[in-house]
């Protein structure tokens, strides 16, 4: 029996004994949650992630998924990427947790307990696709600064909560409201308690959508700690950084929210296209809103070898930010010719869509299967890198897998 198992099997008293101090609010610890002081240094055990995933950064924790691990129609926690700007909060007390609405454009400041949110507003469940704005950053040339994500910083889980709109209506907002900005319980890497690691948001129109949730469940269970327990703002189709985790506050602003990572070049791209490597002034950078059309082959895993004469079945998911994917194609000849895939409708708006196809290869040799999605406005994924931008956002170049026929 290892130390972790011992700790899990034992009661609070034993944990307290190991820590050498009493665990205040121990009774509210989520089941199976280990206090950080006792956490296993193995992040895959600590966050219950597939050990094939890639740790990009351990301070703060940033862990990337792989295409073939994202094959489920609804992404389970085990395959979900983790992206953090700060330190995951350590003390969470459900009884005293509140969500406070303030800012220039609320009629009056108002707070809600978790129990009030759950009991006073109707609950809704949606499958929502959340992709990191920097997913695909590793391919940009010249390289862009930051965590070097490949393709795995995207997931589509089911989120349950109350509509932000319903709560905003209860709070009362004034007609000059422009934007909302979130505040959260994570702490800054420098240890400075006055600094917020990240406080982003979105325009009122996005806040008023049916699918924009104050969520307290993911895939039918409490949200895992790394994904925002006990309360998360979820804005499907927009950069994942707008879906604030460990939510403690919402500021309703009469201007574009100006919290950390809203300004400068964070989550912004040049308003007008620029040549690779161009220096862009801050005032010429525009905030990313909806994510672009994109897709991922989740089966088979890249590197498949098949016998000549056999057909290859493949499948995956496609998504298009605020829009829907209307066409899905594949190519086995490096983009010379394209054939249609079967494409399903989304489970609901802002959920990714499943596609599948079957193909034969004309002769032995090395092939790549490429897929490209087209959204409802006719925008298709590019074959090469899309417009270069200083921070390496929005890479929606088509996904490719390698196949050998022998």
């Amino acid at each position, binding site marked *: 029996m290892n130390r972790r198992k011992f700790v899990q099997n034992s009661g609070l008293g034993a944990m307290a004994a190991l820590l050498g101090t009493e665990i205040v609010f121990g009774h509210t610890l989520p089941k199976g949650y280990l206090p950080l002081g006792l956490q296993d240094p193995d992040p895959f055990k600590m966050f219950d992630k597939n050990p094939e995933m890639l740790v990009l950064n351990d301070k*703060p924790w940033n862990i990337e998924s792989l295409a073939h691990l994202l094959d489920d129609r609804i992404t389970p926690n085990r395959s979900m990427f983790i992206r953090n700007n700060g330190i995951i909060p350590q003390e969470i007390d459900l009884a005293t947790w509140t969500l406070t609405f303030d800012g220039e454009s609320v009629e009056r400041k108002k707070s809600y307990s978790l129990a009030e949110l759950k009991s006073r507003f109707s609950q809704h469940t949606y499958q929502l696709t959340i992709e990191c704005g920097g997913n695909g950053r590793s391919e940009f040339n010249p390289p862009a600064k930051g965590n070097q994500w490949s393709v795995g910083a995207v997931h589509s889980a089911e989120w349950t909560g109350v509509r932000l709109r319903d709560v905003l209506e209860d709070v009362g907002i004034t007609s000059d409201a422009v934007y909302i900005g979130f505040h959260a319980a994570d702490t800054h890497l420098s240890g400075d308690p006055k600094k917020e690691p990240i406080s982003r948001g979105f325009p009122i129109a996005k806040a008023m959508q049916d699918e924009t949730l104050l969520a307290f469940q993911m895939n039918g269970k409490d949200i895992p700690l790394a994904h925002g327990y006990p309360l998360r703002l979820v804005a499907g189709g927009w950069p994942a950084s707008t879906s604030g985790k460990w939510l403690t506050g919402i500021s309703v602003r009469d201007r574009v929210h100006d919290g950390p990572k809203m300004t400068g070049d964070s989550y912004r791209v040049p308003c007008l296209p620029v040549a690779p490597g161009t220096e862009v002034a801050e005032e010429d950078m525009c905030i990313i809103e909806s994510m672009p059309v994109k897709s991922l082959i989740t089966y088979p895993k890249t590197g*498949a070898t098949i016998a000549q004469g056999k057909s290859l079945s493949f499948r995956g998911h496609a998504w298009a930010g605020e829009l829907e994917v209307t066409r899905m194609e594949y190519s086995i000849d490096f983009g010379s010719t394209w054939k249609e895939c079967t494409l399903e409708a989304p489970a609901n708006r802002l959920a990714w869509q499943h596609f599948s196809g079957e193909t034969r290869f004309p002769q032995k040799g090395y092939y790549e299967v490429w897929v490209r999605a087209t959204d409802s406005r006719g925008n298709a994924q590019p074959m090469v890198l899309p417009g270069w931008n200083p921070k390496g956002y929005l890479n929606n170049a088509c996904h490719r897998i390698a196949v050998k026929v022998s």
Partner: protein
Amino acid sequence: METPGNSFEQSARAISRMMGLIFVMFLLVGGFLVYLMIDPTLSAFQSEPEPTLIAVAPPEEDDFDKIENGIHLRTGFVEGEGLMTVVNNCTNCHSAKLVTQNRMDADGWRKTIKWMQETQNLWDLGKNEDIIVDYLAMYYAPGKKGRRLNLTNIQWYVLEE
């Protein structure tokens, strides 16, 4: 015939004995229950040897900054002039991985330092700034990637249908 006084004394002694017995029983059962709370699976009585449960700080190792095959093991940084200055200034707040996964020229690294000083509470690096920038621009410089790289690191496997 015994006097009433005698009988009272006897009963009192019997009660006191019984009380004593109950007290000992209580201690035994109570002690067992407290033990069960700490070790509900009675793991201490199982034959498999248990790892020590107390977290012990690793012994002071003299190879804390060991370098193997040109890599500083503790951080993953490449060995080179300025290595320890980089380790000492760039791994306090964030992981070394945030540095080693990035590629920039001298100008880019200097701008990143400036950004961290303006927004992330990084201290004034003084004379060390040039040492750090020179090291990073030398060992973590951008390579040529073009508009799309070949697929690399493919692990071939036989797909069973």
